[in-house]
C-alpha cells in the first residue's frame, strides 16, 4: 500500500499516525506541497483533485483521510483494536458524528488560522489585517469550545474510555494553528489533559515524529520564497485570503 503524504497537512498526519500506531505497512510517497508537487502531471494521474492524502492499494486509489482511515481499518480489522471505530452502534455513531462535524468547523477554522499566521505575509506581501485575524481566531475558539462542551464533556476521549478515529482526527487539526505559536491549550485544562491522553495512546515518540515538520513551520515562508512555484501558488492562496 502506498500513502501519498505531506506531513504539513493535518489529514496526512492522521493517516500516517493511524497506520503506524496499529502497524499497517505502507510505502511513504512524499508530495511536497510547498514545492507545488501536487500540480505535477504525475500526481495529477494519481489524484485529479491534486490533494493529499491519497492511498493506493494495488490499483485501488482512494482520497479523503476519513475514507482512507476507515478503509485501512476495515481491511485490517482482525488486527486493529475495536476502540478505534467501535462495533457498538451508538459509539460508532458518535465517532461518525465527530468526523462529519469537524470538516466545516475545527478543520476549516484551524486551517484558516494556520494559513493566516504562517503564509499570509509571504503570499500577500503584507501583515494580516487585525480584524481578519481576530475573527478567524474567534471562530476557532468557538469550535474548541464545542469540542470541549459537546464532544468531550466529562469523558476521557470523544467516545468514552479509549481513543478512537475521532480523537486522532481532532488532535492533528488542533496542532496546525498550535504549530504557528498560538497556544490554544492555555486556559483550557480539560483540553490539555485530553491532549496528553491522546498523545500517550498514540505513543509520544510517534506523535512527535508525525508533527516534526509542522512544528518547524517558521521556516516555511522562506522555503516558499525560494521556490519557483510560488507565483503558481499565489493566486490559489489569494482566493482563500480574500
Amino acid at each position: 500500500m502506498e500513502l501519498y503524504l505531506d506531513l504539513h497537512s493535518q489529514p496526512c498526519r492522521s493517516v500516517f499516525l493511524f497506520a503506524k500506531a496499529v502497524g499497517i505497512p505502507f510505502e511513504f510517497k512524499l508530495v511536497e506541497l510547498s514545492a507545488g508537487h501536487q500540480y505535477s502531471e504525475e500526481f495529477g494521474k494519481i489524484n485529479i483533485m491534486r490533494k493529499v492524502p491519497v492511498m493506493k492499494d494495488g490499483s485501488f486509489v482512494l482520497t479523503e483521510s476519513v475514507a482512507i482511515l476507515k478503509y485501512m481499518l476495515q481491511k485490517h480489522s482482525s488486527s486493529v483494536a475495536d476502540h478505534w471505530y467501535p462495533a457498538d452502534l451508538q459509539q460508532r455513531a458518535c465517532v461518525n458524528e465527530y468526523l462529519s462535524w469537524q470538516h466545516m468547523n475545527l478543520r476549516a477554522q484551524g486551517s484558516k488560522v494556520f494559513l493566516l499566521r504562517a503564509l499570509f505575509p509571504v503570499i500577500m506581501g503584507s501583515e494580516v489585517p487585525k480584524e481578519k485575524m481576530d475573527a478567524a481566531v474567534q471562530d476557532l475558539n468557538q469550535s474548541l469550545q464545542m469540542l470541549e462542551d459537546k464532544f468531550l464533556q466529562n469523558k476521557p476521549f470523544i467516545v468514552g474510555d479509549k481513543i478512537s478515529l475521532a480523537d486522532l482526527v481532532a488532535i492533528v487539526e488542533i496542532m496546525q494553528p498550535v504549530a504557528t505559536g498560538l497556544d490554544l491549550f492555555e486556559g483550557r485544562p480539560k483540553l490539555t489533559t485530553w491532549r496528553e491522553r491522546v498523545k500517550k495512546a498514540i505513543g509520544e515518540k510517534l506523535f512527535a515524529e508525525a508533527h516534526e515538520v509542522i512544528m518547524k513551520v517558521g521556516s516555511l515562508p522562506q522555503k516558499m520564497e525560494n521556490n519557483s512555484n510560488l507565483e503558481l501558488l499565489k493566486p490559489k492562496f489569494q482566493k482563500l485570503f480574500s
Partner: protein
Amino acid sequence: MAVELYLDLLSQPCRSVLIFAKKNNIPHEVKQVSLMDGEQHREDFGKVSLIRKVPALQDGDFCLAESPAILLYLARKFKTPDHWYPADLQQCARIDEYLSWQHCAIRLHGSKVFWLKLMIPEVLHVEVPKEKMDAAVEELNGSLKLLEEKFLQDRPFIAGDHISLADLVAIVEVMQPVAAGLDVFGGRPKLSAWRDRVQAAIGKELFDEVHQTVMGSQERVKVMDGSKLEFSKAKILKFFM
C-alpha cells in the same frame, strides 16, 4: 419505537435523512424545527443537539447530529438493503470518500449559491455584488464537474450499479441551487441522467414530496417576513459574502 427526527426540509441534509427513513420504512416521527423562525435556538432543542443544527435524531435517550452519522446509524440499526452502504470494502470506501469530500465542496458551494442568489437579496434585502455571485457559481461548477468526472465517471451511481448514501447526499445538495433558480442540469446530460436514475431509485413521488418546501422558495421569499432572519443576518453575511 419510533426515532424522532428534528428537521427543516429547507435544509439539504434534513431531506436526505427523511428520504432515507421513508424509503426504508423506518418508524419515525418528524419534529419540525423552523430555521427561518430561529427555532434551533429554543432551549428544548438545545437538549437534543448542543450544535443547534438540523437534522438531529433522538432514539430513546440517544441523541445524534450530522446527517452522514444519522444515515449510517439508521442503515445499521434498521438493517437496510446492502446497496445503501455495501459491505464490500471498495464500494463502501467510494461512499465514504464522497461523504467526506462533499462537505467543503458541493454542500458548501450549493448552499452559497442558494443564499447569494435568493435568500440574501430577497429576504435580507442586501445587494450581492455580481463578482461574488459569479465566483460562487464558478465554484459550484467546479464541484459539479468533479461529481461528474471523478465520482460518477461512467458508472450509473457513485459506488457502482446501485444507489447508495452517496447519491442520496449528493442529490439533495444539487437541488438547493436549483431551488434558487439556477439551471444546474442544463448542458449537463450526464448529471441529468444520473438525477433521473436517482429519482427513479428513490421514487419520484417521495422525492418530489420531500423537495416541495425548498422548491417553493422563489415564491415564498416574495411574501416572507424577513425580520425573522435579522438576528442571524450578521452571521449569514459573514459566512457567505
